[in-house]
């Protein structure tokens, strides 16, 4: 099986609102794919459809070869899902939570004990097995929620904004676990709006207004998604300059970053800018934010063309 997750024009409408609009995904086993985009971009809806808990309105898809529409129960047996709410029972202990999910996935008694121990170690919860979940810190809750979700050793793992409200240190250790799982050949989908988190993923799927803007490796996206070259200049009064440069021909994008400006320039316009500024702007690598802005803008343009110019 080359791809573990495949979708073809997968869509979801709620009434007249299109939450997910014809997305096409191809994700390989061992990949960590970040669903990146603002709130309401369709990330969660897409994940829920892939989990088989939300029925697609149109299009098709399969997870591990099981069809989303025909075999959702089969998919459920092979996936781990963790929501942003950390769906744990706060009035149960760590071990009781794990035990419950182990039972729900019908793990045999011997494997169950072995798996629970493994999960306790994975989540770094040794010594806290008998604590009530309510008394754990956010970071521990997050890792426990992950442990509960993957106790059945699923091949596909969906993580819906798993890192909100968690300290940076906990976020890092959480990501290390994710990386380890991917190295074991599992497919991992993680939705987030932290750009730095997405940076660590092998694949990034950019979502905006229900559409999939791009799906590629972060480095590839940075290389190809941004049209033109990105420069940084440091000046005394960046805001004044920003307002001036905004309407220059040849400048596609200019944005303020602290005391400096990022300028996206068409290839052959550097000379004019250099002359105007009197200094040499530094070439910089675009951030994922730049990529996102460029992609969203391009999509906006296409939509404008198809709506008004009849393309």
């Amino acid at each position, binding site marked *: 099986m080359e791809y573990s997750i495949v979708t073809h024009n997968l869509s979801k409408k709620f009434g007249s609102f299109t939450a997910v609009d014809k997305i096409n995904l191809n994700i390989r086993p061992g990949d960590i794919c970040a669903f990146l985009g603002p709130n309401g971009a369709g990330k969660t809806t897409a994940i829920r459809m892939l989990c088989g808990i939300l029925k697609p309105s149109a299009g098709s898809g399969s997870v591990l070869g099981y069809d989303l529409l025909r075999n959702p129960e089969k998919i459920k047996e092979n996936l781990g899902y963790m929501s942003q709410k950390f769906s744990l029972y706060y009035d*149960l202990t760590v071990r009781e939570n794990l035990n419950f999910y182990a039972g*729900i996935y019908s793990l045999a008694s011997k494997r169950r004990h072995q798996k629970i121990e493994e999960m306790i170690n994975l989540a770094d919860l040794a010594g806290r097995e008998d604590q009530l979940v309510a008394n754990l810190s956010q970071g521990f809750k997050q890792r426990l929620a992950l442990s509960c979700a993957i106790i059945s050793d699923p091949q596909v793992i969906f993580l819906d904004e798993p890192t909100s409200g968690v300290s940076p240190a906990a976020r890092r250790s959480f990501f290390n676990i994710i990386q380890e799982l991917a190295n074991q050949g599992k497919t991992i989908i993680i939705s987030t709006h932290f750009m730095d988190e997405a940076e660590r993923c092998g694949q990034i799927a950019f979502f905006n207004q229900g559409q999939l803007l791009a799906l590629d490796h972060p480095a590839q996206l940075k290389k190809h998604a941004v049209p033109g070259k990105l420069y940084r200049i440091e000046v005394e009064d960046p805001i004044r300059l920003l307002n001036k440069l905004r309407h220059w021909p040849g400048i596609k994008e200019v944005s303020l970053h602290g005391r400096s400006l990022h300028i996206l320039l068409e290839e052959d316009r550097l000379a004019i800018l250099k002359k105007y500024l009197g200094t040499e702007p530094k070439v910089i690598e675009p951030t994922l934010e730049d990529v996102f802005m460029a992609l969203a803008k391009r999509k906006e343009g296409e939509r404008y063309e198809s709506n008004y110019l009849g393309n």
Partner: protein
Amino acid sequence: MSRIISVIKKEYLQLRRDRLTLILIFMLPLVQLLLFGYAIQTEVKHIPTVVFDQSLSSESRDILSSFSASGYFDVMYSANSYQQVTRYIDKGRAQVGIIIPPDFSRKLAQNESAPLQVIVDASDNMVANQAIAIANSIGLIKSQQILLQKQPGTSLPLDVRVRPWYNPDGITAYYMVPAILGVIVTMTMVIITAMAIVRERERGTLEQLIVTPLKNYELMLGKIIPYIVLGYLQISVALLVGSLVFKVPIRGNILELYLLTLFFITASLGLGLTISNIAKTQMQAMQMAFFVMLPSILLSGFMFPRQAMPDVIYYISYIVPLTYYLDIIRGIVLKGIGFSYLVGQVSALLIFSLLMLGISTTKFKKKLD
């Protein structure tokens, strides 16, 4: 099977940690039984009574002592005028006034009908009905006695002999305790299960369960079974208190009672689960539970006889599970009857349970939209 057991175990653990709920579950039958059993007497005795005796004869004293000897009337005040009687009743210090006219003994002696006025404060229905009935029968009995005294050797043409079966002494507790037991069980079961699903929905754990291979019916059964056990514990506590404290005789087969109770518990749990599947928040579930429980307690014949209800209401009371259970528990406990007499009631509960469980299993979709 392992999935159902896991849900049961989880519910049990959660319940065990929820001390307050547990205490309530066991205190409820105790407190309710003691309260209802002791405080509620549908038979009203010791009604405060004011007397205006203008005759002051041995005959008037005789009739007054009959009134007080009945135990229903406590002669607490003696008035000197009609106005004074009115005042006592207006103020609520007396609920019954007995007025004996000055010519009472003279009329009796002359074989005339001697009038005797009994005023009843009918603003309290229950007290008034009782007082009126007792006053009338005291009048009749006294008249008979006087007639027989005057014409020795004759006997009364009719001799009606009433024999109250099952509860010959008319002890209210016998009638109330089994009924309260039913009310307590259904109340606890409906409220607890009404919370069961909606709590998980509110806390977000339901979202997690939906993506697991757990089936609908497995979740429903896993949620119900621990509470069936709880319902039985509650019933046992209540029966124990009923027979130890109130000396309620259990005339029928207690095993049969336990067996048939299963249908009632399941019906109540099914109702609770249905509420839980409809409600969006725990608050809504709570309100819906009360919305359903209050009328069903009133309609069941728990306190007010169903025979007295208007036709429409009477038929509505047939959809209330408690109605059937009252027949079952009063039947087994007081009458000593068995299953063969209760087939209708049991089938009604069974149909109700299946309907409710069916609705909640289908209503609960494992999809989110």
